[in-house]
């Protein structure tokens, strides 16, 4: 019986290995064809017609760009908002209100991405298209990334906003737990010294949990980088690198979701495997970084207490 538990545990480690092995094997035709150049070429042309320029040539640069841009938009919106919610729930919320709002924020994480995407297409995209995008363009349009609004409301910005909604509950609940862990004496001490609530929050709560907020950000980033379905629904597809945030695009994950079924050549399938490999490596790095920060944070806290 003990052996059974050990076997199950070893199986998880083997599973990680198997995932990496499968995806590496699947992408090997594309790797041998395009090498690392796959990462900085943005042509993606599944056409097989003879004589066409760059027929059956694949590169993921535009997809990597789209992945990073949408994730950054998501983080830029969700982290300040999520940390503020964490502060509200842990420090400001009067007892019963917090007990209601906390679970509601967590419930946001339970909404499936396909439903959020559907909502994104029909409710959010038209709203962003008609109000937020033109407003951003007129006010801060001198920054090239805030170009003219999209024609449909679908695009990288909309994808980023949808991702922000997905990341928000993660950041909020991690930061709430972090802030609740700040020793009461420190908070009370600051207040007793005459600090206002905000000064106490900034000087004690936020300052002592900074690495934890960093880890929460990275975990949110990890979620945003890998989301496929909702992004596919609202990003509008495209294979060029455009400065304009409101333009169409694609992420690694959304390209896989769009094209995997119905590929026209073995090389296209292999290239989608290659995309998955790039995404997997990105995620492994991001997750390891989060682990490292958390571990260092725990060690430091262990010394403090």
């Amino acid at each position, binding site marked *: 019986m003990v052996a059974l538990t050990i076997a*199950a545990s070893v199986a998880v480690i083997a599973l990680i290995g*198997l995932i990496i092995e499968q*995806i590496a094997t699947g992408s090997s035709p594309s790797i041998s064809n395009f090498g690392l150049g796959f990462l900085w070429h943005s042509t993606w042309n599944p056409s097989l017609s003879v004589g066409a320029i760059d027929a059956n040539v694949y590169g993921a640069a535009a997809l990597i760009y789209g992945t990073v841009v949408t994730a950054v938009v998501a983080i830029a919106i969700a982290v300040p*908002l999520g940390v503020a919610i964490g502060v509200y729930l842990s420090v400001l919320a009067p007892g019963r209100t917090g007990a209601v709002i906390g679970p509601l924020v967590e419930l946001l994480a339970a*909404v*499936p991405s*396909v439903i959020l995407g559907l909502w994104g297409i029909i409710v959010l995209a038209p709203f962003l298209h008609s109000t937020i995008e033109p407003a951003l363009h007129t006010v801060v349009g001198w920054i090239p990334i805030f170009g003219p609004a999209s024609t449909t409301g679908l695009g990288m910005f909309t994808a980023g906003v949808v991702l922000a909604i997905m990341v928000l509950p993660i950041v909020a609940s991690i930061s709430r737990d972090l802030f609740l862990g700040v020793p009461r004496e420190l908070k009370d001490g600051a207040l007793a010294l005459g600090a206002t609530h905000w000064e106490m929050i900034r000087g004690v709560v936020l300052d002592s949990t900074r690495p934890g907020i960093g880890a929460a950000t990275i975990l949110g980033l990890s979620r945003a980088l890998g*989301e496929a379905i909702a992004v596919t629904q609202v990003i509008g597809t495209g294979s060029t690198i455009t400065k304009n945030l409101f333009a169409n695009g694609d992420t690694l994950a959304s390209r896989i979701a769009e094209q*995997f*079924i119905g590929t026209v050549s073995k090389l296209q399938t292999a290239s989608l495997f290659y995309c998955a490999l790039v995404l997997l490596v990105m995620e492994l790095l991001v997750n390891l970084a989060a682990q490292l920060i958390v571990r260092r944070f725990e060690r430091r806290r262990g010394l403090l207490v």
Partner: protein
Amino acid sequence: MAAVDPFAPLVATGNLRRRRRIDLIMRGSATAAAVVAVAILGIVIFSVAQRGASALSISFLTQDPSVGLGAAGGGIANAIIGSVLIVAVATAIALPLGVLIAIYLTEFATPRTAAPIRLALDLLNGTPTIVIGVFVFGLLVVAHGQSGLAASIALAVIMLPLMARTTQEMLLLVPHDLRDAAHALGTRRWRGIVGIVLPSALGGILTGAVLAIARAFGETAPLILCDSIFGNGTSLNVFGTAVPNIPIDIYHYSESGFPNDKARAWGAALVLIVMILAGNLAARVILARQRRRMLAR
């Protein structure tokens, strides 16, 4: 904060009003952030409920889809049953494995052996679901074609770290006295775990399972690769063929241009979200009851 000279005489700096104002603004914005999050949840659920309700009817729940996109009438009965079957098989794989891993981590592992397993669970949890879909595609679908089973396995991989983690947390909450008492009575370690530790953590394990199941119901990315049959397929043979399911229906109907299909997407979304919210609610009730029982002891 800046270093303070403890011997300096205390003088009013006159900026108290400004500090108070900043305090008020900051507290106000934190509250506003919480309101925004709840408002988003409200708007999403309201949109789904409002638009989904008009598509919902008894026949929507009990009939299979009509043939072809854009057609009127028909329902999503096949997809509801298909989703239940796929998730049931996934749970049957992930739950026992997750519990076994959690038992190993809390009862037998040394810090040294626990570290790599914990890391593996965290990495698995951080792996994008679409990548897990690609993995199962390479593992099974290339050779055997799409099937409900392939989807179940992909969902099981997604559920496994969730199940293992919540179970582990619950096992850690079981008081050590209970284990010691079982030991003192001369029971073997394994019987102590099965007879004493697991039952007292049962509520928590169930909570974790229900949450993971709710998550699996809405998971779409791996299904696109492993089980993307859509429309009026009626095969419900999970182990042999691709099986219709709710997320794929929503995904395809949402991208269709026909108003009938958009309505169907909302109807299916409403069914799915009600199932998931009910699951989350049930999990909370179980957890509250468990906590009360633990405290009463």
